[in-house]
């Protein structure tokens, strides 16, 4: 069993450079073709920042389309433009935003599932209870920063850890490895542990060349000096914060660089966006990490400017219409690359966002902050080709609208924690640890949803 700290201590020795060779890896129980290589699972959470409008991502094509069209007015997608999804689910037939067309075949193949009206809940709640303030609800509804913190973490503001980070901390020892929790941007709540920091992966470049030093020559005078700076204890809190940040950046980057040196570029098309670039980087690394005997990882990939209070439709670069093109290309490319590398059943992706948006449009051709939202999950072990949960009504002030002012703010019918628990259980989190990772789940009879096979 290799604890992160032991692993890093080994890496900190005079033979750090040998980490980049197979012998060093073997000594740590991680090596190309190692006996335990094979049992690998990774969860990739794609978080669309700003609050993606789920109403315009997944749209009913049966009689409910008329309700949608009436409620969404100038935001409504023409019915003829929608990309049909095969079959029916949750009592409806559905179509996707035309930009999401590359996801429709994945739905048809049973690899992609939608999760209807999901969002943060303290306990099960009906819209009527919410309108009457008769039930406990998450704090700061409508606040971007707080809803991101709550969706990725939980409902207590003072704890900044996330369910991915907490879940990784509580996996059985046999499933622990370095780089267990990873973020690909500065944002990190989901993968932040209670007592452990996530690793950071630069999605654009992870060279061994750091200018002053090379990660593949940690024995050089300059590399040794930097490591002495970063490993020393200082009398001042913020000198230590700096030093530990430097140290973990070097340690984590060493491992990523080592994988990158053996990575093959996927042939799949990820599109030309920053998101596509990052997903391509991730797709190139995962096969190497699996082969080296890594067991469980959670990755947070945040991207986008989906806070579409205005100009949500159209071809300008920051409309939802334009950004969903990049999402679909990057996601479909990633899935194709994972299957091509033989990791199709080892990797699951969850798409989520700050919150859903109001059913009613706002002035300027946009929509406002709301609550429940439609997400998707993708992967070979996802129970795909269906829409999980209960699809909400578009009626303003209707049975799903928790807004006393009837703007169409849907009260979620699936809790973020139920989805998170399902995926962390898939990663190997024991049922006995669920409440430690998802404290509010104690308020729910149903702990998970049937999103994953087996």
């Amino acid at each position, binding site marked *: 069993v290799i604890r992160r700290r032991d692993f890093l201590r080994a890496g900190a020795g005079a033979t750090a450079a040998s980490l980049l060779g197979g012998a060093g890896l073997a000594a740590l129980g991680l090596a190309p073709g190692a006996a335990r290589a094979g049992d690998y699972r990774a969860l990739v959470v794609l978080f669309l920042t700003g609050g993606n409008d789920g109403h315009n991502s997944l749209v009913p094509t049966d009689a409910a389309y008329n309700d949608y069209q009436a409620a969404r007015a100038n935001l409504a997608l023409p019915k003829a433009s929608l990309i049909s999804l095969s079959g029916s689910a949750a009592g409806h037939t559905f179509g996707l935003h035309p930009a999401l067309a590359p996801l429709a075949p994945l739905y048809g193949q049973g690899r992609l599932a939608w999760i209807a009206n999901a969002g943060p809940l303290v306990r099960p709640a009906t819209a009527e209870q919410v309108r009457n303030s008769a039930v406990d609800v998450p704090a700061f509804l409508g606040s971007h920063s707080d809803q991101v913190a709550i969706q990725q973490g939980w409902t207590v503001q003072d704890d900044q850890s996330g369910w991915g980070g907490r879940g990784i901390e509580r996996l059985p020892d046999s499933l622990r490895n370095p780089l267990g929790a990873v973020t690909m941007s*500065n944002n990190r709540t989901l993968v932040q542990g209670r007592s452990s920091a996530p690793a950071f992966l630069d999605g654009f470049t992870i060279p061994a060349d750091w200018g*002053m030093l090379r990660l593949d020559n940690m024995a050089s005078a300059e590399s040794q000096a930097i490591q002495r700076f970063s490993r020393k204890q200082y009398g*001042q809190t913020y000198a230590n914060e700096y030093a530990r940040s430097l140290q973990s950046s*070097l340690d984590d980057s060493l491992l990523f660089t080592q994988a990158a040196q053996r990575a093959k570029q996927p042939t799949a098309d990820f599109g030309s966006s920053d998101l596509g670039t990052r997903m391509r980087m991730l797709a190139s690394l995962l096969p190497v990490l699996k082969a080296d005997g890594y067991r469980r990882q959670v990755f947070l990939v945040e991207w986008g400017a989906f*806070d579409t209070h205005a100009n949500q439709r159209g071809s300008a670069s920051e409309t939802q219409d334009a950004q969903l093109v990049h999402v679909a290309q990057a996601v479909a490319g990633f899935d194709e690359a994972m299957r091509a590398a033989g990791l199709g059943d080892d990797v699951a992706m969850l798409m989520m966002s700050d919150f859903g948006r109001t059913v009613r449009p706002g002035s300027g051709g946009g929509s406002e902050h709301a609550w429940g939202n439609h997400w998707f999950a993708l992967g070979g072990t996802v129970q795909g080709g269906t829409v999980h949960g209960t699809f909400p009504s578009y009626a303003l002030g209707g049975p799903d609208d928790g807004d006393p*002012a009837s*703007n169409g703010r849907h009260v979620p019918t699936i809790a973020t924690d139920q989805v998170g628990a399902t995926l962390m259980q898939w990663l190997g989190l024991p049922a006995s640890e669920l409440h430690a990772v998802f404290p509010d789940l104690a308020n729910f009879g149903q702990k998970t949803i049937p999103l994953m096979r087996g």
Partner: protein
Amino acid sequence: VARLLIRAALLVCGAALFGCGGDSNNRSATANSSSSSGQVAASKNYKVSYHAAARFAEQASFGPTATLIEELRTKGFAQWIDEQFAVPPSKVDPDKFAQWQLQQPNWFDVWNPWMAELHRLWLTAPDQLRQRVTWSLSQYIVVSSQRLDPGAVGIWFNQLHDMALGNYGDLIYGISTNAAMGFYLDNVQNRPKSAECPHCAPNENYARELMQLFTLGVVKLNADGSTVRQANGRPVETYTQRDVDELARVLTGWTYAPKPPGAPVDRNWGNWERPMVPSTWAPERDSGAKTVLGRAFPAGQSQQKDLQDVVALLMGHPNIAPFVALRVIQHLVKSNPSPAYIARVGAVFRDNGSGVAGDMKAVVKAVLLDPEARAGDDPATLAKGDGKVREPVLHLVGMLRGLGCQRAPVEPWSSRPMVAGYQNPFNPNSVFSFYAPTDLSPGRNVLAPEQKLLTASEFRQRLWHLQYLLIYDWQNVGSAQAREAGLQRLRDAGCGFDAMVAAYRASPRALIDLLGPRYFRGAMPASLRVELEKLSTAWKNTYGWADEEIVVKLLTMALMHPAYGAVL
């Protein structure tokens, strides 16, 4: 050898980039560190020590220079602050943003000269305190060139800079009518439902963020910045969705100032230099009665009167004093101030001593002169949790100021000014900026907002940025020609790098003696000094690098040390 040392010192002093003041022999500084040997200025009657002045310069400017330290030591902090308040604002020149008003300029053709202008100010402007306060405010009152034309953001900088040391109430009014902000948070499109626009409904974006990010925050605060809690421990929320709905109604009915007849169709479509004006078309304005946070806004009020009432409402809210106090303290002085420090500054926000609330000059002065800010001026009195992580912008600009640069050098691989790539100024991803005041360091849970930017990408940039100016050339990486071109780029930016090379040629110790007063307040840690001497020897013997390369690497390495990575 001694003669060489003196010559080197004269060269450096003669360059007038740095006086020879300070603890150039790098003895551990004390409260009396003005008494270093061999200084012309030693007999002066200074009001503060070299160490204290350099430390203050890190809080109140973009970093120490010899001139600034001398001025601070001569005048003392209070007088310097008062004089800074009287210095006219130094602003960027929008005419330098080449062709930004053309229909389709290349984004970088606008952004590059705007960044060059901004860094010129940060490096050389005489109103350093105002520059630092504007940068602080801009980090939580955000517009970003990720959505706006960079030229419009440059103009926003000038407008914010004008308001930064005025009254906070005027600032609220000013940002609320600002055209760039009107675009960035959509208030220029905030319209009620009407017969003319049946699908309109108030756009809540600006209303929400005005309360959440610019004035009050989402939780009720006590006067000392602590959270007001319910009996069950949960925070009391400042406002409800209903308040956001209503405030959005109050803020309806603003539009861009009209442009003169015949003005060209160009990138200045928002008329960025001018504040927004009330729309005169009735359907664009909700003139009904509203109620926000319990305050009634009577029907029929003008847009201006409603906004004045919003300012009065926000300025009268108990949150705003600790809200502003915490942010100004965190940006200038320390990440984790004591509740008492927040309360003291908050009290000055409430009343500047003459019964005026929101006087930002008084607030800034209170922040900088507070005993908790000054406690570390004598290193012996520095508390364990004082200071903060140095943010990327201050790391880069501080380095350049220490070099004496007058402008940001131009990167050979991009032809762009050298800027902090991982805290791209005025270009954050969203209105939530680079970090939040409440961000804890992962795993260790220390309040350390700037730590969020200390990623592998940032450290890597700190390690390659300066040296690549010197060795990078598409054709001849590391060649003598590349090096000469790099030195010329530094000279073109007015940097005093050649003086550092001259010192190094006298002896590595002479160079290290320069770095101590410039970057370490005359108190470079002894262990760092030893490391630099060892590296200097190892590099010379092992690689045979050119002197310039060794100097740039020694400087880079020194600034990687935690004594510079944190501002204590």
